[in-house]
């Protein structure tokens, strides 16, 4: 029997209620606090599963975050890059670009529920209202708009040279896509299903994030993120993070923006109000996509090292786990509360 199980069984009923009282310096209260802390730790430690897409293995691996052990591997794929959780949280959609399909995986178990034929899906995301799924095909130069209910293709737009990552306006009306080969961001009206405009941002733009009325775009061919005003279509400022600026993600609590640079191999903590870099974490191996654990840990795929990294933001400690070749997309189950 594990320590976690003992602690759980030893808990008295209504312990949650008792924790709400002011804690006085009695032995029983301290013991209760410790017990609850252990339960919380164990619950998250037992439940945390890290999904990693090894793009050139190609495979999907499921890692137990507590032990670092691989608990499952799905093979027989062609080239997996990105993944997204369905709006109802019941399915992980994993895009196999060269395999021309999306795998629907149950996040809690890793079981493949079904596969759908989709033309060369690279990056994909649901609109904030959950009604549309937008899929970028890097190699086929297209952006597809699907009805999220039933995956019916509504529109295929020719989108220039290497459409890469996708972001949305909060009202779900406009999709913004980085066009890597053209050095631009493309705006697509999702209601009229047409291209609105294209604005230059810098060489090889990659990750993109809607942030308080602006678009923050990773300029992979430079050392910064560009802050683009979608109204004026002008780059208003830049955030220097290191060579090969790549992707950017908000922390679940909204208190930090986390950005990666693949060439300089670092992860930057950015203050969301001022867009100033708070701190750099040197993470060798080409950090790419990020995901957040319920315990606050930041997980990163290390493209050139065949590993994932777990970064503890409090201590700055980094540990790595071997996963496979060229790991790209990453997801932690359960997802940290937004």
């Amino acid at each position, binding site marked *: 029997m594990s320590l976690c199980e003992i602690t759980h069984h030893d808990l008295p009923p209504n312990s949650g209620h008792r924790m709400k009282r002011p804690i006085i310096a009695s032995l029983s209260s301290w013991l209760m606090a410790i017990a609850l802390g252990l339960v919380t730790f164990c619950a998250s430690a037992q439940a945390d599963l890290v999904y990693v897409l090894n793009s050139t293995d190609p495979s999907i691996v499921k890692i137990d975050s507590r032990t670092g052990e691989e608990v499952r591997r799905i093979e027989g794929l062609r*080239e997996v890059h990105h993944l997204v959780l369905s709006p109802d949280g019941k399915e992980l959609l994993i895009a196999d670009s060269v395999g021309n399909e999306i795998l629907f995986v149950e996040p809690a178990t890793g079981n493949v529920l079904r596969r759908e034929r989709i033309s060369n899906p690279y990056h994909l995301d649901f609109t904030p209202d959950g009604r549309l799924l937008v899929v970028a095909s890097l190699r086929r130069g297209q952006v597809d708009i699907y009805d999220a209910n039933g995956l019916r293709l509504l529109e295929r737009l020719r989108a220039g040279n290497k459409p890469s990552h996708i972001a949305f306006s909060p009202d779900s009306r406009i999709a913004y896509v980085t066009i*890597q080969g053209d050095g631009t961001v493309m705006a697509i009206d999702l209601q009229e299903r047409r291209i609105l405009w294209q604005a230059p941002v810098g060489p090889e733009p990659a990750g993109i994030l809607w942030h308080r009325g602006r678009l923050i775009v990773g300029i992979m061919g430079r050392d910064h993120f560009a802050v683009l005003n979608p109204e004026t279509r002008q780059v208003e400022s830049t955030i220097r993070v290191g060579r090969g600026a790549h992707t950017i993600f908000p922390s679940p609590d909204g208190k930090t923006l986390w950005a990666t640079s693949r*060439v300089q191999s670092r992860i930057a903590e950015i203050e969301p109000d001022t867009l100033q870099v708070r701190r750099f974490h040197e993470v060798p191996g080409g950090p790419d996509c990020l995901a957040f654990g319920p315990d606050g840990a930041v997980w990163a795929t290390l493209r*050139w090292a065949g590993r994932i990294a777990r970064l503890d933001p409090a201590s700055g400690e980094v540990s790595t786990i071997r996963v496979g*070749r060229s790991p790209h997309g990453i997801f932690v189950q359960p997802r940290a509360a937004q």
Partner: protein
Amino acid sequence: MFKTLDDWHTRLTGWIFETFLQPALYATDLMNIADEMLEWVDFALFSIFGIIVTYIVCRPLEAWRPVEPVTDRRAIRTDIIYTLLARLGIFPLLAFILLSAIQSRLEGMLADTGFVTPTLESLLPFLQEAPLLTFFIYVVILDFGEYWRHRLQHTIGWWWALHSIHHAQRQMTFWTDDRNHILDETIAALWFGTIALLIGVSPAQFPLLLLLMRLVEAFSHGNIRLSFGRIGERLLVSPRYHRLHHGVLSVAEHGKNYAVLFPVWDWLFKTADFNRNTYPRTGDPAAPELIATGGWLTQQWIGFKRMIGIGEKA
């Protein structure tokens, strides 16, 4: 052990990429082909491993039981250049950057039509539980494809004009396997890749499959006096069996022993010659001298000229 080797391979690939290639890509605004370049480093390292394995297996045997003495080291050096270019050089690089994009578009168009590429495992579900058997069947099917490609190389005029570079070598060694015109290599890669795609070879198995097939092919070109015996000669292509194919009386449409791995195809299609005591001289007597003795570039140019002047077919 395999996991440890694989990890070393990944680390070395990443180190080479991060230390040498990525800074160059960044400096030249080519970061958008970073993925393809990483794959190329991965492939090149695997190829180096393949060359080392081939050398370790073949070189001692060539020294121990040579068919003929080495009299033309320059010709062997040219073949080494062929090998390095074919396995590490510009062709694999272009293949990764260009062909992967073309392949992706073609597959996407297939997906648009609703056609789902079958795999052996989807046609024969019991194979899902038998990966070794599946691997063997893939090898057999691909080898069958290689047999027919090889026969067509000998019977179609312009194709033979390219392939005769391979046959012109009079100082045959295990390095000769990669002595091919670059257009011939391109066609071969497309042929092999298309069949692999159609039968659904897993990308994870592909490098191992290539390694195995190339090892046997290089071995069969070796300057080694070795026959596999009455039964063995009918199971696997030996140096003797393939040397007969390179013999001076076996050029163009007069060819025998086309098989690459399994002689059964020659047996079935009446192109086998199991005369086990023969180790003929190799070369193409009708080919221009420079195709046999010139440098890489000269051979490529002459091969190209002969291809477009179909009337000059030897």
